Structure formats: structure tokens, C-alpha cells
């Protein structure tokens, strides 16, 4: 149609002006989409790291307030706060048929090989039969004997450990020596047990080495049947009968995870909104350019109207102009936002594996769509003004 052609030609003869307007839209779309991509990649990355703990309920001794116990590295904690065997049996009973795993934790000095540096690492002890419920091995076997241990993947990598390597535990090796029987698959951050930098030993060895007897540091319930929230409530009902005399703190990892994702979602929305400000600035620029275009062509509008052009046709001519700038600018912005998303992912997350996902595509489509909508919205008033000009006044305009 002729009005589409006129819109195209008007953009072409005002190429610099139109390009600057497009640049504004490009920047706006890149800001919105790349922030969206970053936020989604961040959530995906955290989600990936935490996915293995989404089905756990972690029970720790009540410490007088809050339940913010994030597993691992329990060394140096108060020795008086423990979960008794009686409490553990209660937890086990109310959690059934889900598996309740009693866990000892500490951290201690250790040496790997002769003449190596003294290092400190967390040590967990949990029943061998329950280990497969919590972690998987990338090499070796679950230790069946008292002198065997499992090591986390990062720990093994950092200290060049293999299946069969030996580790001396305690200052000067006073707790004895353990042989690595398996290396645990990377688990990432975890609410229950953070194994990547830790040793896993048998409860028997732990009780013997640290003089402990059925007084656990935490209990992990792996919820396979039912809902973590229900299990949490059942445990609290059973053990924290008296409000003033709470025995345990119970954390539902799924609920905690949901809170974390919600927080990430808010951060994503916030940074995307900041990107949106640049889009609003671009919209103002489009509005300005469209108003200029209308003001420059008042006489032309008058001629068009006088020879039989309908208001809606005049309006369409300016809407087409805004749409062309919007679509071209937004599509270029969409492509560049993928490049920006790639760069940000490499710089901030050190990986691009979360880039080519549906969430990324949605972020780009949202950015492009928002860009086009902003352009159309900002072109609407100038187009309406052009269409509703009095043709007699417009014809007189010099």
C-alpha cells in the first residue's frame, strides 16, 4: 500500500534521525533482554546447584532462635547442642516411610601423604546404608569398612586424591589413617551435607575417633513419599510440643529453595526494570521524532486530506513509520542481547550452558515485544494528531 511506501521512504530520507531513534530502541531491548537472560541464567545455575537438596528436611538441635543451619563445616560448634538417640527415633518414626539419616559433623586437621601440608576439612559421618540416598559416586565404592572414607570431588581434585589414597586424620594423625574408597560426584551447594570439600566416614569410626555416642549433630530426612512441608510439620509437632521448650529446629529445603528462587526472581525483575528505564528514554526519543515528522509534513497531510485521504489512512502512515523503526530496532536489539547475554554469562557465571534455554528465548521475545509496543505506543499520539488536523489549517501551513 502507498502509505507503507511513504513511511519507508520518509525513514530513508531521514536516515540519520531514524537510525538514532533505532539506536535508542536497540539499547533499550539489549538492556531489558540481557538483564532477563542474566537473571534467568543465574536462577538456572543456582537451581542446578541446589536441585539435589529439594527433597530434604533437615533437623538440627534448637539453638534458641532461627533455623538457619546450612549443613556442613560443623567444626567448633557448641558440643552441648545435640540430637539424642531418643529424639532421632521419634524423628524416624514420624517421618516413616521416608528415610531419616543421623549425621555427625566436625572438622579436623589432616594430612595427605608424607610431607604434605596440614589441612583442615569438614568430616561427616552417616550410616553406610544411607549414603546412596544422599550422594552418588563418580569413582570407587561406598566404604564398608571402618578404615575407609569417601571424599568430595573438589577435595579429591584439589589434593590429587584417587581411590586408594590415604589420609591421616587429626593433629599428627592421632585419629588414625583412612583409605579413600570412593570419590563423590559434585553436589554443589547444599542444605544438608556439603560434600564437595568434605570427607565422609562411617559412624563407628567417628564415634570411636571423637568419643561420641548416638548424639547427632543433625538428622536429614530424605522425603521420597509425600511433601516436605508435611514431614516438617509432623516432626515439629512431635518434638516441639512445648513452645517454651523447643528441642529441634526443622528446615524444609523445598520451602527454603522456593524463598531463594523468589528472591532471585525479584532481583531479575528489578534489574529488568532498570533496563526498562532505558526503553522509556528510547520511547521518548521515538515520540520526539514522530512529532517532528508530523510537524514537518503538516502541509502534506493537508493535501492528502483534501484529495480524499481518510483520517485512518493518515494515521496508518505514521504508525507504519513508528512500527518500522520499532521492529528493526527491536530485532537488532534482540540479536545483540543474545551476544550481550553470552558475554555476561561468560564473565559472571563462567559458563554459557544456561544461555540457550526457553527462559532466554522468552527474555529476548519479551524485550523485542516491549520495544515494538513502546514504539507503537509512542507513535500513536503523533499519528492521531496528524490524522485529526483540520485540513484547511494544514493546507495553509507554510
Amino acid at each position, binding site marked *: 500500500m502507498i502509505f507503507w511506501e511513504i513511511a519507508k521512504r520518509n525513514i530513508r530520507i531521514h536516515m540519520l534521525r531514524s537510525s538514532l531513534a533505532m539506536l535508542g530502541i536497540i539499547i533499550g531491548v539489549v538492556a531489558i533482554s540481557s538483564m532477563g537472560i542474566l537473571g534467568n541464567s543465574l536462577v538456572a545455575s543456582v537451581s542446578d546447584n541446589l536441585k539435589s537438596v529439594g527433597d530434604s528436611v533437615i533437623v538440627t538441635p534448637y539453638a534458641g532462635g532461627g533455623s538457619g543451619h546450612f549443613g556442613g563445616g560443623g567444626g567448633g560448634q557448641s558440643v552441648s547442642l545435640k540430637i539424642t538417640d531418643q529424639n532421632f527415633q521419634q524423628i524416624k518414626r514420624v517421618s516413616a516411610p521416608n528415610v531419616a539419616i543421623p549425621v555427625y559433623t566436625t572438622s579436623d586437621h589432616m594430612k595427605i601423604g608424607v610431607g604434605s601440608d596440614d589441612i583442615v576439612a569438614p568430616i561427616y559421618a552417616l550410616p553406610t546404608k544411607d549414603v546412596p540416598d544422599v550422594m552418588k559416586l563418580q569413582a570407587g565404592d561406598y566404604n564398608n569398612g571402618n578404615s575407609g572414607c569417601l571424599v568430595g570431588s573438589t577435595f579429591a581434585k584439589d589434593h590429587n586424591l584417587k581411590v586408594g589414597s590415604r589420609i591421616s586424620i587429626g593433629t599428627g594423625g592421632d585419629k588414625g589413617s583412612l583409605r579413600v574408597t570412593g570419590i563423590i560426584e559434585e553436589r554443589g551447594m547444599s542444605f544438608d551435607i556439603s560434600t564437595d570439600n568434605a570427607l565422609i566416614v562411617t559412624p563407628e569410626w567417628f564415634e570411636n575417633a571423637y568419643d561420641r555416642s548416638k548424639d547427632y549433630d543433625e538428622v536429614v530426612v530424605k522425603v521420597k513419599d509425600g511433601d516436605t512441608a508435611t514431614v516438617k510439620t509432623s516432626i515439629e509437632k512431635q518434638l516441639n510440643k512445648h513452645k517454651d521448650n523447643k528441642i529441634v529446629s526443622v528446615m524444609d529445603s523445598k520451602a527454603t529453595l522456593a524463598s531463594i528462587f523468589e528472591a532471585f526472581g525479584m532481583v531479575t525483575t528489578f534489574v529488568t526494570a532498570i533496563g526498562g528505564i532505558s526503553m522509556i528514554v528510547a520511547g521518548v526519543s521515538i515520540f520526539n521524532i514522530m512529532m517532528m515528522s508530523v510537524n514537518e509534513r503538516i502541509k*502534506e497531510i493537508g*493535501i*492528502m*486530506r*483534501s*484529495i*480524499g*485521504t*481518510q*483520517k485512518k489512512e493518515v494515521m496508518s502512515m505514521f504508525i507504519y513509520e513508528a512500527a518500522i523503526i520499532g521492529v528493526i530496532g527491536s530485532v537488532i536489539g534482540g540479536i545483540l542481547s543474545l551476544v550481550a547475554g553470552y558475554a555476561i554469562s561468560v564473565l559472571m557465571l563462567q559458563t554459557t550452558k544456561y544461555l540457550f534455554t526457553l527462559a532466554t528465548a522468552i527474555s529476548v521475545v519479551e524485550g523485542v515485544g516491549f520495544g515494538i509496543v513502546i514504539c507503537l505506543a509512542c507513535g500513536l499520539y503523533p499519528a492521531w494528531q496528524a490524522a485529526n488536523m483540520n485540513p484547511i489549517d494544514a493546507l495553509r501551513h507554510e
Partner: protein
Amino acid sequence: MADIPVMSFEDVVKVYPLPAGDVTALDGVSFRVDRGEFISVMGPSGSGKSTLLNMMGCLDTPTSGDIYISGTRIGDMSDMELTNLRRDRIGFIFQYFNLFPLLNIIENVTFPMMLKSQKSVDPERGKEVLRSVQLDEKLFTHTPTELSGGQQQRVAIARALINNPDILLCDEPTGNLDSKTGAGIMDLMTELNRNGTTIIMVTHDPHIAEYSRRTILIADGRIVS
């Protein structure tokens, strides 16, 4: 049908309400234009010529009285209906040609045709009309700014004729041309009129008015002869 006038004004009054007081631009104007007439409208500045031209071109509606175009009363028409009437029944020729600088000559001429058909049109029809106004064929694909004033006015006449209108409304058609070129344009309009086109021309120039067969003289918003 033969005696229905192409245009008729019946006691048309146009009052512009202004803060300083109402201004009566047309005061009880009545006349009729029959098919095939060539009429010039003359009068001093401020006499109401432009208002009359706007009324004849359906760009404005009267405060009172009636205007009929080929028997159709325009007083109650919506903006959309008036626009369609301008497109289909009236051809406008302006003093400053008023061609669209973004379109080439063929596109300028076929523009009203495209408005009517709502789709692309055969450029042959545009070429045919351009040939009838004696424009050099080499210029058909040029833009208006590449043409002389006389050539631009021929293009404007071709554009006004493309939809076979009932009336050609001309506002000082030679006002921006030298006398020789102006005479050429008037010869063309005389020929168009001879071939049946109804022409109403507003002019200051008595020499140009001589080309018409009837002159309406207007003063203080009234027809004086």
C-alpha cells in the same frame, strides 16, 4: 438527470465565532454550477473567496444553508463521507502544485486512484492521463522537485483528473507560474472544459478569468454579480 446541477449553493452562511466577535465570511450565498461549465470566482482579499472554495471542496460545512454536490446534500455528512466525496467527485488544483515529494510522478498521479481502489493500481492509467496533459514521458519516473513549475502543475492537473471527478476546483492555478507557462496551463484547462470537464477557478487575475465562460464576483461574503 440532465438538469441536476453539479454543484449548488442555497442561501449558504458561514460564521466563524472568534473571541473578538463572530465573523461572517459568507452571507446568504446562492448559485448553481451546471455540468460542463467553466466558472471563475473573483473578488478582493477578505471577500470570502477562500471560504467559498473550502465549502465547494467539501473541506468545510456551512453554518446554515445547503450545499449539494451532484444532488447530494453535504450538510449532514460525516468526515468519512465528505472525504470520500472529495476523493471521488472533486479534483483539486492548487497554486503551489502541492505534489508529494516522496512519490514519483506516476505515483503522485495515481495516488487518488489508490485511495479509491485500496490496492495497487495499473500505472498505465496514470501514464494515459499524464499524456493527456501533455507531459513529456521521460519525466514520468522523476520526482516532483526535478520538474519545472509548469510541468508540476500539469502533473497536479493529471492527479486531479485521475478519478474522473465531476468538478475541477482550481485555486489560482497560474499564480505561481510565468505568464507564458500560465497561458499553456489555461489552454490545457480550456481544452479539458471543451471535452466536458466542469471547472471552477478562483483567481485574482482578470486575464486568467477571461478563459472562463462565467464569472462570479464576490465581495463581503456576498455574490455581487
